[in-house]
């Protein structure tokens, strides 16, 4: 009996071990398949979301907003004056200051011992807000960026203080050290007995009243000119660049000023596209195109090609030879000129691209002019605008991501010829789901040249 039981126990134990083994095996299979099932579900959901975000971002190559309007910064019916772009308007005259491409958004006005003068009677009886983006070139002890008459609508900087002087004897001082080589948004809002604030980068700096007059002092209208780049009294000239200077005839609220200082928060879409006209120019060294058809056709070296592209003088122009190599060009009125070498009885096609953007560098083109060229009606192609690319690269990533309401991303633009790339966005994680989509684009570089590139969007 004892022996049988022992045998049975052994047998039972063997069955037991086999059963547990089978159980573990089945459990492993079940865990494996169920995990794969859940993983598939998870990947499906996540990839779909990331892919949709990436596609949405990549459409920036198709969407275009006006160069000055991306992102749109200044708006509102209360705005009295807004200085942006090469044409200041308001009958303003510039002296020792100039418009250049290096603004906070697009171009800006740079000053070096110069100023802009605006003959204006500004009605600010209901309150006033002064606003500007400021880029000092140097850390100078004291300077002013704007002013009018005897200390009206004036903004001064000293080593550690921003002073806003909206009206007679009202000094609103905020502690802030302006750093050279950085863009800073500054705003000052004043309404007697109601508002007396100075904002730096959208933040209320809790300014204190440090002037001889209290903050109940009324605003004063005067007929003296408004000056940008210095105050009305001599001295305290600004050395740097101003952009998006605006004067409002009311006090803007905190949220509006914040959205002007961090415009990415209001972005709904990134649009980098612009239109370019592509002209085909036929240079044919055949008899019928020679001006003097009595002479024999010979190889042409240094033939001057002149093509009327209806240029207005405010565009980027690039001419490529049949191999896509950019040519040296000259501009004369509405025409572009360049040199061509064409063997006898050969026809070459050059292509001219005319786009919005910085004016090209030109040279004096001279040579023979023996044949007549033919210009074909232009076709429109989409390019990526250099000013919008620069705006994107200089944007606040965190604010932009929050404004757009999408996942983390990185945007990379790679030149297909030089393989140089510039990128914007967060750091791509080493692990986890990352969706990357790219597309081919023609982009405009900082000098207005058109280059083939690859736009890549990574989302995670």
């Amino acid at each position, binding site marked *: 009996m004892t022996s049988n039981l022992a045998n049975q126990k052994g047998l039972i134990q063997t069955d037991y071990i086999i059963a547990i083994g089978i159980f573990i095996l089945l459990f492993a299979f079940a865990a494996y398949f169920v995990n794969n099932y859940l993983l598939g*579900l998870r990947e499906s959901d996540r990839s779909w979301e990331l892919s949709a975000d990436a596609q949405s971002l990549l459409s920036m190559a198709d969407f275009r907003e006006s160069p000055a309007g991306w992102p749109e910064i200044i708006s509102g019916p209360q705005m009295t004056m807004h200085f942006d772009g090469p044409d200041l308007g308001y009958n303003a005259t510039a002296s020792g200051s100039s418009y250049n491409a290096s603004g906070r958004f697009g171009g800006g006005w740079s000053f070096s011992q110069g100023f802009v003068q605006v003959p204006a009677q500004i009605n600010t009886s209901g309150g006033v807000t002064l606003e500007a983006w400021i880029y000092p070139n140097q850390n100078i002890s004291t300077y002013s960026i704007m002013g009018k008459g005897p200390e009206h609508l004036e903004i001064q900087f000293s080593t550690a203080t921003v002073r806003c002087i909206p009206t007679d004897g009202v000094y609103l001082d905020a502690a802030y050290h302006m750093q050279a080589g950085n863009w800073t948004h500054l705003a000052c809002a004043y309404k007697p007995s109601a508002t007396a604030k100075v904002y730096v980068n959208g933040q209320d700096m809790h300014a204190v009243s440090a002037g001889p007059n209290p903050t109940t002092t009324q605003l004063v209208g005067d007929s003296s000119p408004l000056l940008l780049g210095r105050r009305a009294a001599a001295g305290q000239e600004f050395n740097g660049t101003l952009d998006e200077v605006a004067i409002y005839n009311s006090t803007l609220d905190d949220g509006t000023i914040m959205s002007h200082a961090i415009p990415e928060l209001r972005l709904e879409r990134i649009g980098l596209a612009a239109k370019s006209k592509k002209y085909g120019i036929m240079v044919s060294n055949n008899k019928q195109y020679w001006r003097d058809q009595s002479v024999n056709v010979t190889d042409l070296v240094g033939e001057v090609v002149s093509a009327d592209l209806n240029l207005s003088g405010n565009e980027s122009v690039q001419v490529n030879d049949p191999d896509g190599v950019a040519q040296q060009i000259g501009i004369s009125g509405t025409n572009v000129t360049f040199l061509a070498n064409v063997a006898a009885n050969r026809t070459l096609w050059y292509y001219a691209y005319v786009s919005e953007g910085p004016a090209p560098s030109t040279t004096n083109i001279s040579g023979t002019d023996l044949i007549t060229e033919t210009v074909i009606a232009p076709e429109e192609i989409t390019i990526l605008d250099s000013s919008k690319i620069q705006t994107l690269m200089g944007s606040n990533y965190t604010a932009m991501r929050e404004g757009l309401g999408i996942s983390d991303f990185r945007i990379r633009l790679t030149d297909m010829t030089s393989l140089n790339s510039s990128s914007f966005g967060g750091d791509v994680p080493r692990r986890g789901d990352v969706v990357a989509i790219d597309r*081919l684009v023609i982009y405009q570089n900082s000098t207005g040249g058109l280059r083939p590139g690859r736009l890549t969007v990574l989302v995670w």
Partner: protein
Amino acid sequence: MKGVVYTLEVLFAAALILITLTFVFQFSPPTVQYDIPLMKEQGAQALAFMDSNYDMRKWVADGDILQLRSTLDSLLPDGLNSELVICRNECNAGLVPVGKSVVAVDYYVSSYNDEYLGYKLRLWMWR
């Protein structure tokens, strides 16, 4: 003895449940094939880019299919097979594989400068 049998019964029941789970969840739900629309978009964009940035229309006018194919190869992502033909209405798909997911893109080339062509480029792509 009863306990052992009972244990085996429990294990058997659990095994049945696991087997059922395994059969139910052995296949993931069908996932969306992102690469098909992406492939199509990449093909269309590569042709448009070739038109804007290269002398594609001249190559079409000259019937230079080798130049077109080599340029297109440099523009399409690695690992993507393609076949390109110049045609009008009927396009010969002789080299396109059978039994694979193949994406086709048409790009119409109506003219080259002042010359009417009336061609289209038919691009097939597959992995």
